[in-house]
């Protein structure tokens, strides 16, 4: 185990304290309105901190640091370009429009601005996406938990050639296992006793005698030559491996159930106020890793020197603007047009799990101020999340799985006790993201689907019961989905790819709805469905064509951009040829048209 007793004490105090605090805050919940919108009583500072901490969940602590390990500070664009400017635009332009309509969800606002079909389509999209994304967050969190607690099953590799460890890792599902490397038979026997591996791969260049087998504690042994290594060879041999003591699924299950119970008790008020604590703990913990990591390297100039000395591999690690033909998924064109103009706007303006807390603000002033405060906090985030990924590279340039960069760093630099603080910060990120998504998913399904189509006129306590029931259902859906998240190279890219399918089209109809009174319900519906279909088509063509359509590995930024453009075009064209919405419906829904 990596953690010491004091670490566990800190974690337990933090976990119990948060859950008790959440339950205490949520004890006054009496109706659906309390559960979904905190009775519209939230202050700006709490919403602002909640916005930030919900956005930088455990998925970011794992995924962004991992991507920063590979690509450098360019990941900072996701906060500096992808959050700050957009939050300021949202504060003055979009959030007041949503808040004054007193809606509970973005789809509900779309229903009021356009029509019932647009509301239902949007609600179904969010309602399906959010439980899936919950699964991804849970997986990311479980993966890091396993690394931190050293729970992953071990695979022992004995060879004198270090390149072979990389080849074998690639031939198996590297995310599920920790690979232990030894270059002599005796060292392998020793490691086998101490680390309890599930299988041992032994290079046939080493002089391995058949009677040595008994010294390997009965684990399956595969004698191999380098030429044999392939993905089918890896899969076949891993099937022979001994059953591991701990599987990542157990971590997913335990965390899902614990968080599900906590969220079930909470409601939005508990979500937001626990987020305030989590924001302090998470930012404090992450910034501590930043300062401690750089301090142990000898200072900023030493840190920059180590990274710069790695040559071609890190030549762009301190550049925010990368060429169009960069080998990374973050070319400046995609970042500026796809992220800056589309995905970021869609996230901060149209993402239900984000916007929902500002809908629960106690006044319009609080709703606006919360986004400005959040923008100011967001400036700090790349220092807390991205730079530690680069620091990890300075310490360990040869990590096989980049998503383990942050975990490897904190294991290396943090002493007992302080590791517990970081672990609490990690749990804070995890809890804040999961409870937000859970609460929002339950809100959308209750308000936009159940209440609208099944039981429209029941009292508010009935919707509280339904909302809590959805919360339980979705946590189990998330646990199921989490098992499939292991198949993607980078967790963060998977989440972004999913988002890119509908973020662009959703944003298009919100922007036109707020800024152009001529936009009609039929136009919005065609734009939304057409845009999503186009996103799916682009991704399908990119994956199946002999020559990929886009020349970056994960084209989510471009997919979002083109589907946004197409949705705008379709909505405008169809709106022009359909009848304008009645004037009384538009007043208060369109910017500066009261």
């Amino acid at each position, binding site marked *: 185990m990596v953690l010491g007793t004091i670490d566990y004490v800190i974690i337990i105090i933090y976990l119990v304290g948060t859950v008790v605090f959440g339950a205490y805050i949520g004890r006054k919940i009496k109706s659906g309105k309390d559960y979904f919108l905190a009775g519209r009583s939230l202050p700006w500072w709490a919403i602002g901190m909640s916005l930030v901490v919900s956005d930088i969940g455990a998925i970011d602590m794992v995924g962004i640091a991992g991507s920063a390990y590979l690509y450098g500070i360019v990941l900072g664009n996701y906060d500096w370009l992808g959050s700050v*400017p957009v939050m300021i635009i949202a504060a003055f332009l979009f959030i007041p429009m949503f808040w004054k309509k007193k809606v509970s969800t973005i789809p509900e606002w779309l229903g009021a601005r356009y029509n019932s079909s647009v509301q239902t389509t949007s609600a179904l999209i969010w309602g399906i996406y959010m439980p899936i994304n919950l699964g991804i967050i849970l997986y990311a969190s479980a993966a890091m938990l396993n690394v931190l607690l050293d729970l992953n099953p071990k695979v022992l590799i004995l060879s004198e050639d270090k390149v072979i460890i990389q080849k074998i890792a690639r031939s198996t599902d590297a995310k599920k296992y920790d690979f232990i490397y030894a270059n002599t038979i005796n060292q392998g026997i020793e490691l086998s006793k101490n680390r309890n591996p599930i299988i041992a791969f032994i290079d046939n260049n080493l002089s391995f005698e058949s009677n040595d087998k008994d010294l390997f504690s009965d684990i399956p042994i595969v004698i191999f030559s380098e030429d044999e290594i392939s993905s089918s060879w890896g899969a076949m041999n891993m099937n022979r491996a001994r059953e591991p003591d701990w599987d990542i699924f157990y971590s997913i299950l335990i965390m899902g159930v614990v968080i599900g119970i906590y969220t079930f008790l909470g409601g939005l008020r508990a979500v937001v106020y626990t987020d305030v604590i989590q924001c302090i703990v998470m930012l404090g913990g992450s910034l501590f890793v930043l300062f401690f990591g750089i301090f142990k390297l000898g200072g900023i100039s030493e840190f920059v020197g180590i990274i710069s000395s790695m040559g071609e591999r890190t030549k762009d690690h301190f550049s925010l603007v990368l*060429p169009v033909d960069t080998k990374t998924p973050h070319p400046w064109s995609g970042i*500026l047009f796809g992220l800056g103009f589309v995905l970021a706007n869609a996230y901060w303006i149209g993402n239900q799990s984000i916007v929902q807390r500002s809908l629960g603000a106690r006044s319009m002033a609080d709703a*606006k*101020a919360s986004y400005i405060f959040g923008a100011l906090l967001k400036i700090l985030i790349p220092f807390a999340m991205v730079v530690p990924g680069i620091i990890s590279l300075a310490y360990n340039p040869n990590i096989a799985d980049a998503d383990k960069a942050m975990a490897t760093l904190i294991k290396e630099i943090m002493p007992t006790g302080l590791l517990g603080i970081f672990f609490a910060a990690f749990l804070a990120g995890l809890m804040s993201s999961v409870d937000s998504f859970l609460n929002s998913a339950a809100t959308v399904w209750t308000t936009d689907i159940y209440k609208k189509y099944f039981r429209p006129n029941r009292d508010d306590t009935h919707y509280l019961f339904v909302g809590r029931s959805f919360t339980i259902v979705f946590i189990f859906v998330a646990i199921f989905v989490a098992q499939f998240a292991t198949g993607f190279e980078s967790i963060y890219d998977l989440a972004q790819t999913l988002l890119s399918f509908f973020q662009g089209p959703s944003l298009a109809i919100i922007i036109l709805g707020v800024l152009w009174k001529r936009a009609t319900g039929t136009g919005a519906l065609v734009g939304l469905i057409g845009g999503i279909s186009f996103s799916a088509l682009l991704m399908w063509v990119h994956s199946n064509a002999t*020559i*990929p*359509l886009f*020349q970056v590995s994960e084209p989510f930024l471009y997919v979002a951009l083109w589907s946004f453009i197409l949705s705008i075009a379709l909505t405008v064209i169809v709106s022009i040829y359909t009848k304008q919405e009645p004037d009384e419906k538009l007043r208060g829904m369109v910017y500066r048209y009261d």
Partner: protein
Amino acid sequence: MIDILTIHISVSIADIISNFLGIPGQFIRDILLSINLHIAKSLFIIYFLSITYWVYNLPKSEVILNNKNSGKDINLKPFAISAMVMIIIIYLVF
């Protein structure tokens, strides 16, 4: 046999669409490739400056808000502009 045929047809259709979309795509890509990185960075800065300018010009009614608890007026404009200025500095450094 049917699986192989289905894959073959899928790839062919994807290739046709890819070739069709690839022509305007390549044209745009060539234009973007020809843009110098310094100019690209300038585009980022121009975007940030545009937002700063927009905030600066917002009417008082949209930026000065009354806090019901304290009874005082709060002007959000200086906070928003400060955030944007910090972002501009960061992009000038990196």
